[in-house]
């Protein structure tokens, strides 16, 4: 086919060889190429690349965002549950503490009360004992003098200051007490 063309060139237009480029042919070929190259390089392809990247981001980013949102949601749920468990534990602990405190307070109060009761009882008994002793003592004195007065009246003599008489009364009273004690023990 090539030879046909060359022959045709030789035959019809001897000055034209289609394999040798004319200068304007080369120049316009180069101009067209350069313009188009710059056009695609600087304008078209950056736009397309940007769009493709954005599209990929939109697709992958959507998936990523969904995953992130899901992770956040489950994290939030976990932390909520953890907080809930904490709160429950805290409430239980407070309740337990309160119960323990209450028990302690009740025990203390009981103890205090019984101690107070014991103290009051002891004081009362002591007082009663003291009063009994006082009564016994005064009774003993009074009974003694009464007996002496009675005896003096009976015998007509003053026995009041006699040491013997006092000793006699004391002995009598001691015997009385002894017999009383013996009677108590006997009962």
């Amino acid at each position, binding site marked *: 086919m090539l030879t046909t*063309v060359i022959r045709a060139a030789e035959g019809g*237009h001897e000055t034209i060889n289609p394999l040798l480029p004319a200068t304007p042919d080369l120049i316009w070929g180069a101009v*067209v190429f350069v313009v188009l190259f710059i056009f695609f390089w600087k304008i078209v392809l950056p736009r397309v690349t940007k769009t493709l990247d954005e599209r990929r981001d939109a697709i992958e980013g959507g998936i990523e965002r969904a995953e992130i949102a899901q992770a956040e949601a489950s994290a939030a749920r976990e932390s909520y549950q953890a907080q809930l468990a904490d709160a429950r534990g805290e409430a239980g602990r407070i309740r337990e503490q309160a119960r323990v405190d209450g028990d302690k307070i009740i025990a203390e109060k009981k103890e205090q009360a019984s101690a107070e009761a014991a103290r009051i009882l002891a004081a009362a008994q002591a007082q009663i004992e003291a009063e009994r002793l006082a009564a016994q003592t005064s009774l003993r004195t009074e009974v003694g003098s009464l007996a002496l007065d009675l005896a003096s009246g009976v015998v007509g003599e003053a026995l009041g200051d006699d040491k013997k008489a006092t000793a006699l009364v004391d002995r009598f009273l001691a015997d009385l007490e002894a017999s009383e004690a013996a009677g108590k023990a006997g009962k």
Partner: protein
Amino acid sequence: MLPLALPAASDDQFQGPTIGEFFPDVILFAGTPFEMNRIMIIRIVVLLAIVIIFSIGTYRMKLVPGRFQGLIEILLGYPRRVGEELLGEKDGKKFLPLLTTIFFLVLGMNITGIVPGMNIAGTSVIGLPIVLAVISYVTFIGAGLKKHPGTFIKNSLVPPGVPLPLAPLIAIIEFFSTFVLRPVTLTLRLTMNMVVGHLLLVLFFTATSFFFGLLGNGNPLGLLGAGTLLFGFAFSVFEILVAILQAYVFTLLTAVYTQLALAEEH
């Protein structure tokens, strides 16, 4: 339109198309290195058409493309895929502007061969294919030298593993095939496809015109014109295929040569 561009055929003698088809009269800037004939003007028109189409197609691109943007993206996807499949993602991106330019420039210039009113491919005169072949040539040699400085030429001429006595012979063959034949075949394959396509179409349509002329004069041989018209139509469709195929082949070979240069064994 075509018959108008032809030398007037006389009624009784058929005159086929000549190589003069590709060297029409100068229209603009006569006498300067920038003089323009019909084909140069067609090149400028194609350039403007490509710029306008792709400017509109990529203006305010949306994430969800409309029909036109989708079409533009599909078109731009062809050279992108060629680059990425042959050169890998990184180098494919680097050489994408060149491959895209070559693809659409060749395609646009080829397709004018069957565009009514133009009827001749912008690539059917050898200047533009030479420019493109030289750029492809410089690109793959430059890529090889940059990637493997010092060893690229040596390994291109004598592949590793060649027995020493054979080396000079291999070197001559490899030099011829890599550094001479590649750009020449790139140029001629494209130019000759377009030249032959154009000559065929002109032949069919001038023949149709000639036969119908005969028919007008009462010659029954003129009925052959129906056949030539049909062939002309069929070859017009075929030329669309050739236009796309040649654009693809030129882009593919540029990518293949670059890939071979980058992947040179060391």
